[in-house]
């Protein structure tokens, strides 16, 4: 058997999309604590927690040429201790295996959200911008830590080609992350008088970016931008949703109460994303790979509804 690609977090929607694109050309070893529904026959699946010792068996038993690590979760309902442990300890274990078993390539899926929306942001943040998300939203600090772990791994292990991808908001018909859930809402909240430019990326384009990151020789940190940027209001128009305008001084306390009583699925800090800019410059990625988004802006927006 030729050397395989380990994909962590393969059972999620993005993971399954990636698996579909990759399994015809590569041997895939999937790792996830959830079962892989509708798994193609040629993908070997290991249903284990990344934090467990058993993870090493995968590397011990098979020749692994690359690891795509996206076993990172973001669930505002989970206790911050579990969240932190799963993301940070899980990532550390994966990185340890990569170093110990001489894997040549590591791709880590981070997010453009690590920069954080803020009124003083430049319109297009480059990869060198500081990761400020936790300044206004402390419970995302584990996601920043994952990014930093990958970053320091890049320097400590120059023999491994480490690629850290920071894609913008991923949307898709089956994706259940905060931006997709928010945009699927028929009557989403918007903050009166605010209409920031937002960037979204089709789940298939994001998966293709991870495949492109396997290109030999490629390493570094890259923002991944989809078909561009549009005002939030243009997305509502395209989707035909009827947003409710809420004055921003009211929105925060209101959402915070609703969230506490489980009447809303977003913590109030997420409001920053519909108030301020957090747009990134993806030109470095486009220059160094042949990757281009295959879905237009209109298709990407409509993908939220599964059209």
């Amino acid at each position, binding site marked *: 058997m030729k050397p395989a690609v380990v994909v962590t977090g393969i059972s999620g929607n993005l993971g399954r999309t990636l698996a579909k694109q990759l399994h015809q050309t590569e041997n895939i070893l999937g790792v996830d604590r959830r079962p892989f529904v509708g798994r193609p026959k040629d993908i070997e699946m290991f249903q284990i927690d990344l934090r467990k010792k058993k993870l090493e068996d995968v590397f011990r038993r098979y020749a692994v040429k690359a690891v795509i690590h996206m076993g990172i979760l973001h669930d505002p309902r989970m206790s911050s201790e579990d969240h932190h442990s799963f993301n940070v300890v899980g990532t550390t274990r994966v990185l340890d295996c990569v170093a110990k078993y001489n894997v040549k390539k590591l791709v880590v899926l981070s997010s453009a959200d690590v920069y954080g929306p803020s009124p003083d942001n430049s319109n297009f943040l480059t990869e060198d911008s500081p990761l400020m998300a936790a300044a206004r939203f402390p419970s995302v600090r584990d996601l920043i830590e994952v990014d930093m772990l990958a970053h320091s791994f890049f320097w400590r292990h120059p023999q491994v080609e480490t690629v850290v991808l920071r894609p913008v908001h991923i949307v898709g018909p089956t994706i259940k992350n905060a931006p997709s859930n928010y945009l699927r809402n028929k009557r989403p909240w918007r903050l009166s008088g605010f209409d920031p430019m937002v960037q979204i990326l089709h789940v298939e384009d994001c998966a293709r970016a991870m495949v492109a990151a396997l290109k030999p020789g490629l390493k570094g940190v890259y923002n991944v931008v989809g078909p561009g940027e549009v005002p939030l209001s243009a997305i509502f128009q395209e989707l035909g949703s009827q947003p409710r305008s809420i004055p921003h001084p009211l929105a925060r306390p209101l959402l915070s109460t609703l969230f506490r009583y489980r009447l809303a699925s977003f913590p109030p800090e997420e409001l920053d994303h519909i108030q301020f800019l957090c747009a990134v410059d993806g030109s470095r990625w486009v220059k160094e790979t042949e990757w281009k988004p295959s879905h*237009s802006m209109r298709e990407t927006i409509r993908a939220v509804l599964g059209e």
Partner: protein
Amino acid sequence: MFDRAASALKKGLKAWTESMVGDELEQKLKGLERSQNEYGVDPFGFSLEYALSAIAPMIWVYRHYHRVEVHGIEKVPKGRVLLVSNHSGQLPMDGAMIGVAMLVEADPPRAIRSMVEKWVPTLPYVSTFMARVGQIVGTPENCRRLLESGEAILVFPEGMSGISKLWPQRYQLQGFGLGFMRLALETNTPIVPIAVVGAEEQSPALVNVKPVAKLLGFPVAPLTVTGVPFPLPTKYRIYFGDPLFFTGREDDEDAELEKKVKVVKASIQQMLDSGLKERKHVFW
């Protein structure tokens, strides 16, 4: 219903702009489209459609309220350029008037960008308005990006202390920031000094009421002769100077940059002084 009213207003304003500028200029203005996507905005959020509507009242103010007189606008070179002006008047009418001048007097017309304070994105409606008419937050990265793509950028190096200056300080240039000079050196951009005469008297401020500013979260809260700031119909005279070219290292010591900044400042002050000498009256 609100949306329908807003779109009717937009259409009405756009028709107003078209009737004021005439056919020839209208065609030229339509040629100002930047790299816009299918949703009518460029990557920075500028919308020509929106801007042509929003500008109608400003053109009226330009022609009939402040009755702007422009001198030397032909000196503005093509391609990347930093327009550096004095700043005053409590409300940024000076910026708006320079912007209108570059649209209706310059040939070909140019839609310039200006850099806004970092608290603007925190203001509802204002933040959206500013983005759609092409104004962006004044971070060095934003500025560099725009200059590299050949845009004209208006900067007020006096910043907040310029626009909020009190009556006794009129026509006295406040301390200039050095950021614009670093950017000009780094991106090899010519600087066109601009003097705006008339704005400094439009809204005489007597005192800055600091507790009110603090309460509202504003940088300043001036008490003017009209109570809250409101521009009086002073006559504007805008003088464009010869482009200045600077060479040197952008990461040089502040003292070295200050020497260069002084040249720009002196040129603006000199145009201000001669402009003041020429005019007979504040209002006409």
